[in-house]
Structures are given as structure tokens and as C-alpha cells.
């Protein structure tokens, strides 16, 4: 369950690059390349295990022309997807 206070960290086994505003993630275990659009890339870049989801939402609101409500909804959904695909992990004890 992703809440405003959740912190997530990137899966350290997933190499990644930012290329022309998109994030390219290499899932070596699945043998797949995952591409994130510029908004997804911005969220991916902001995931550091320190910032909470709420802080990432604030960051997206400052960076893109989007309302707090929409950013909050989309970031929660997006990070839930990342968790489901094990590209990030929930940071415990934060």
C-alpha cells in the first residue's frame, strides 16, 4: 500500500540511463528494456529512498504544469506499478 509517507528505493540490480528526457531501464533478469516517458523519468530520478511520495508529488507539481490532485493520483499509480514490477522497493523503517 503506497501512502503519502511511503519511501521507495530503486532496485539496485536495474541499470538505467536518462536519454533525451526519457529513462531507459534494463531489466537483466527479465531480459527487457523498460522505457519511461519524461514524467515517469522525472519520478524515477526523484526516487532516492529519502523523499516520501508526498515530496515527489510536490516535485512533480513544481516541474510540470499539473494540479496537485492529478499529480498525487498519477504518482501513486505509477509508483504502485513500479513496485509491482519490482523495479523499486518499499524502504522499511523510514
Amino acid at each position, binding site marked *: 500500500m503506497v501512502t503519502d509517507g511511503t519511501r521507495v528505493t530503486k532496485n539496485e540490480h536495474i541499470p538505467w540511463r536518462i536519454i533525451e528526457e526519457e529513462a531507459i531501464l534494463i531489466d537483466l533478469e527479465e531480459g*527487457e528494456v523498460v522505457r519511461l516517458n*519524461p*514524467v515517469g523519468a522525472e519520478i524515477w530520478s526523484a526516487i532516492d529512498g529519502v523523499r516520501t511520495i508526498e515530496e515527489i508529488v510536490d516535485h512533480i507539481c513544481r516541474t510540470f504544469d499539473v494540479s496537485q490532485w492529478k499529480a498525487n493520483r498519477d504518482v501513486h499509480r505509477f509508483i504502485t506499478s513500479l513496485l509491482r514490477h519490482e523495479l523499486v522497493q518499499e524502504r522499511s523503517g523510514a
Partner: protein
Amino acid sequence: MTHPSVPSVLDQELSRRLWAKLGEGPFPLACQWELTCLCNLRCVMCYTDCFNTPERIRQELRFHEIVRIMDEIHEAGCLELCLTGGEPLARRDFWDIYAYAKQNGFLVTVFTNGTLVTEQIADGWVQSPPSMIEISLHGLTKASFEGITQGTGSYDRCLAAIRLILERRLPLTLKTTGMTLNRDDIPAIKGYVSRLGAEYGTTVHYKFGSDIRLRLDGSEDVAQYQLPADQVSAIEEADPDFHAERSRRNRQEEESRHQGTTRCGGGFHRFHIDAYGRLQLCSGNREASYDLRTGSFHEGFYDVLPHFPCPHRQPPEREELLNIQPLARRHDPREVEAHG
């Protein structure tokens, strides 16, 4: 005389067999038609209420236009028709529209707030029964109910309507949108619905929802009523039926994701028509429309609708699954160093 709930059959075995028979191609099986944004109540979280104005109402489809479009969707093979609003019963010609749909063999569901249901209307439904009547029941006390509907006397009228319908053994679903104003009432409402079924010796279905939609004019003031995800989860975890329904939806969503279809079938087997005759994927996605006042349903459904954007229609590739809605930057993109 009893009227068994057709959707309860259709939604399960018949629907499954029918959809399987239709194969993998799109087919316009089920339509949700928002007949009007006119409503006698002003529910605080309602997404259509912003268009409940005389000027907007004058722009809505007239009866002759509705009949022409209904003929087209009937000819295309549509079977299920859900009439909603606003408050569909607030249209003076509701009965003409309903009767025309029934004469054409549609399985008709009516979404209503119940407050305009009279004995005459309930008797009419006995003569020509709907597949389902769905009434919103957002509170179980006069204060909480009318705090949401902002309509004096609406609580008593809604409960009276429920009894009129059950006395006639018509199929009934009661539903609640969980929000900040009624979150503590949900178990009591569900218990009340269960007791109603026992009292009348029938099944009264119950639906719990939690999504508050932005208003049709884009205003976000309704977001204040949205329950946080953890509170929705707590409500669903506490009730075995809600929990089972959530699990079923999650499985369905996951299955759709793998199959690359939309979560709800919008544009595939289902479609939405708004009060102005605009064909859309679903009531929750009006980003793109096709005007049925000037175009044909066949062209709209088969040629145009498949190209409408839908965040839930995802090809199975993981890179697409992980996309998020594109947005315009407020400033130049910052430099991001490569990591690995």
C-alpha cells in the same frame, strides 16, 4: 409476480458466453447513456452538477435525436442500455425514452437518486420491467444523506422509493460512494441493505465505490471529498464482500493488462453517450468525443472510438505499462546525469 434480475444472469454466465462468442473484435454490446445533466438534487460530489444549468440543458439531445441514435445502436447490435444522468427521471420525456428502449428489446438499467419515483412510475416498471434499478444511498440518517444531496426531504423520498420498488419485487441495487462525509456510515448502510432484502424476501444488491470524479467542467473542488487510499483499503479489508470484490477487480485489471485490453471494455464492448450526443469510451473518460448528432454510430464506434486515448488500454509490453500521462514542463528540463 416476480421479476428476476436479468443483469445478475447476464453479467455472469450469459454475458461470459456472449462475449466469448463475439470473439476478439470490437462489438457495441453495452451502452451507458447520460440522458441529461438535469437533476433535482445538488449532491456535493456530483461531476455532472456543473452542467445542471438552463443554458446547458437547452443544448441536450431532444427526443427525436435520441430515438434516431437509439435506432442506430440497436441496428448495430447493442443489447444493454443503461440510462443515467443527472437524474434521468427529471427529463419530462423519460417515459417515452424508456418505453422506446424497451420496445426495441434493450435490457434497460436505470440509475436514479430515487426521489422522483412515484407509485405511478413504479407501477409502470411492473408493466415493463427494467433489468435493474440502481439507487444511490449515500447516508443512513436524514442529516448525513441530505448533507450530501443538499435536498430537503430527499432522504424520506429516497427511502419511500426503495420501498415502492421492493413492494413490487422489482430488481434493485443500492450503492454508496464512500467519501469523507460518510466513511463511518458504510457498514451501517450495507447492514441496512441486507436487512431490507430479508424483510422483503428478495436480494437487494449493494455496491460500494470510492472514486470521486472531477467535475465535467474540470473543476477539482470535489477532490476534497475523496477518501485517501488507506481509508478505502481499511473499509474494504473490514468487510468480506468488499474485500472479495476488490480482489476480483484487481484480478480482472491484471488480466486486462496482460491482454492489452481496457479495464472496463470501453470502446471494445462498451461505450458512453453524453447528454449532447457525443460518443465516448466511457463516462470516466471524455477526453475525446465523436458527435452522433452529425455522424453515424457505426463510423463513430468502429472507425473513431478505437483511436481515442485511454490510460487503461495498454499493450502488454512493460515499457507501456509503466508510462504515466505526459505533462508540459513548467521550465526547461534540467540536466540529468547518467547513472548505472
